[in-house]
């Protein structure tokens, strides 16, 4: 079923809306949640919460493409769940590793919470990602948006693992420079 028909189902308050969402995007959302939470049961719950949020947000929203819309909801829910857990209790080392890598984008001693408004930071990252070369952008998002491991990225995208690692390292450096230029750190 096409996305807009599924959105129509939400607007019609049809119970098929969630059924069709699960059929088409269930595994996609689960993958995102699982990559972050590293626990199948928690990921299931996160996906169910995604459906609930989707139901409550349509109407009034009418997203043109459902995958990113639902993916965002899932990712935010999963990240909030993961961040509410202590670092020790967090599901797997994948998220921890990715976050440690992201920390390299901010100089020691800088507290982003104080140095930048969240809305400004969001806009800056959006611009930064838009300006990346296609391949670099996909690897960056695969790692820090979808939270795939380097190994998984190399296998799925057909790059060597060292290439993935070096691209990510280069992009992180670029991000740090960009945020500095923008006066956000």
């Amino acid at each position: 079923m096409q996305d807009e028909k599924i959105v129509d189902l939400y607007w019609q308050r049809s119970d098929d809306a969630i059924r069709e969402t699960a059929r088409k995007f269930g595994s996609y959302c689960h993958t995102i949640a699982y990559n972050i939470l590293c626990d199948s049961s928690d990921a299931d719950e996160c996906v169910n919460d995604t459906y609930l949020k989707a139901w409550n947000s349509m109407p009034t929203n009418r997203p043109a493409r459902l995958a990113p819309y639902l993916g965002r909801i899932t990712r935010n829910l999963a990240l909030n769940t993961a961040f509410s857990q202590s670092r020790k209790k967090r599901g797997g080392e994948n998220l921890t590793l990715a976050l440690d890598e992201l920390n390299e984008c901010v100089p020691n001693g800088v507290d982003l919470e104080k140095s930048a408004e969240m809305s400004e930071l969001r806009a800056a990252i959006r611009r930064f990602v838009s300006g990346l070369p296609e391949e670099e952008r996909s690897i960056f998002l695969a790692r820090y948006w979808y939270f795939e491991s380097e190994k998984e990225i190399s296998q799925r995208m057909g790059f060597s693992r060292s290439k993935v690692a070096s691209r990510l390292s280069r992009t992180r450096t670029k991000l740090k420079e960009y945020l500095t230029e923008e006066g956000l750190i």
Partner: protein
Amino acid sequence: MNSEILALAMDEVDDIYLEDTRAALGYGVGRKRSAKTIRRAFLLAAVISLLLAAAGCAAAWFGLSARLTPIEVSSYGETAKRFSLDNYAGTATAEAGREWTEYFNEYEASHTFTNEISDSSLAEPELSYSMIYGAFDRAMLDRLEGISEKYGVKLHIRIYPAPDYETGLAALGIGDFIRGEADRGFKYIFEDGSFTVESYMHIGDTDELFSLMRCKKDSLNNGFMVFRGNEVYDEWEYVTETGQKVNIAVNEWSEHTRTLPIFILYDAGDYLVTVITHCPNTENIRAEGQKIAERFDFAALTGGELNTELLDAKTVELAQSHPVKPKIGLMTVSEFFETDEYKASAAFQRSYNDYLDTMNQGGNKAPGMYDQYYYDSFPAADEKINEIFDRVIEQYPYLRVATETQSVIMMLPVDADAMTSPFSYKGAANPTYMYESISMDALFRMLGTQPFIAEGNYTAVANNTGAFLLAGADFQLSYIPKGTFFPTVRFALDENGETWAYTTSCGEQVSIAKGGDYSYPVCNFNYALYETDIAYVFIQFEPNLGAGEIENILDGIDFTKLNELKPWGAEREITPRYIQYKPLTIMKENWYCKDEYLMPQAEKEYVFYTHEALCGDDTKGITWSVEGNDNVTLTDNGNGSCTLVYHGSERAAIKLTASRGADNFNTVIICEGR
């Protein structure tokens, strides 16, 4: 923490980049060369939409526009037009297609088909109409036949799945029509010489998926496209080097899908030919389009007369190369394990479990710990499962596969209060299904058998190859016609267990193989085998059943009735039941609502159970909660179940959760308002 803030700040990355990355990661979009499969689905419309999901049209030129008929389908928007594969706009065939498309879409949108056609008994040609056109019930069939009569167009009555290319060409009476490097093969051939090819062609540096459809002008073809955008095509006429005039239309580059869809249209006299693919280069598009057109010999696509005997003979030839051996003496379970029927089934189920392991990487099950079995129909909801299926079938091409789009699946609590777990499977996108309850008489009528087992709670699956599965509490009986692929056999982990012959109470002798002790994760089933001249009856018992218990169950089966079964089809009457099940809203595994699975009605009580409650396990400490709506009364029944009543006036989604300590399970339920 800085990294957490950065992670959250990525929330506004543009959709298109998320989609691109999703595609690059292979999350269910796009198609990789290595994943090519020839699907055995019957609804051709899906093939075309796969290729041209982004295609729109405002072309006002002869080629495309001559095939466009305005249609009225509310969800398609006011400017929607139907692109027909079978004839030009204004012809009876195109008008019939328009009416059928409008009707089909509106009807399908307003019907769930749940059990509505349970009692329909279809004979040919309606059986074929049902499969080919997706006419799921009596009303749809009546309308389809009415349209055929009204416009004087023929309906397809026979579809031959995927013969090899040479056989297909010989049967069609035409020459090779593909030039250069390409995977050659047919997807379907119809009884009137219409056919579809879906394959890969090496164009430039890439392998492009292409579809070629040749459709008879006076037969209604169920494949079509709906155009509703305002994108512009560059369209021109081109005469190929061998003198055939074709129309080529190239859509503008879609930044979103990163594709450049291309149409090549050819009038082959009694047939219309349509080629759909993607142009790999974005420069010199006209030259590229013409290069692609030169990859086809359109002259070869004209005429020919279908020789169906060749297609039938190919099937016979394959079958004869692996002749069905009649029963000779008592076949042992070990001997059954050497048959291709078993090997194919085991290969499928092993691959399926490997796939579940892959899905579970990093999860809470160790590799190899899955013992899930796939029982559902094909094609599956999960593309990966279809790939596994196709891969196995490629290894065993002489095994017959079911051609029905739906297996018949049902649940039989003869005792209405009995709770029986419906079949479900992990790894696929489907939520758990609710199956139909029917009587024992209806069960045997559906299977085309005389009663051969006592009344009880069973789950059954039947295919139109004559194969069926009947699962009871402690056993699972598979009736597998020789030469048939029926992937319901649980693969054996110990194939060399103790065996003995046993004469059951009906006087028939079976072979029994006792599995080893249950030693997790090695789960050794016990087996019994009964052979007839035309089929294997393979029975799997739960581990840890004693020899006496196994023999007891076997005594309850009248094998003489199974021995009398005729081959499926001409000699064996069946009652087809085409059922499109309405799945539960979102019902997680191990969750059951006693009264109904369907949308709870306002002010009515619904009892939900945990798996522990149903299985009589310890339910201490289980608590219930509900989120998402305040208009809910939730009563914890204290026995692992709860009673839920929704009081709201509007349809609402609620999240029901059962917790015990740190563990919790939840489900989202849509409740109907007052």
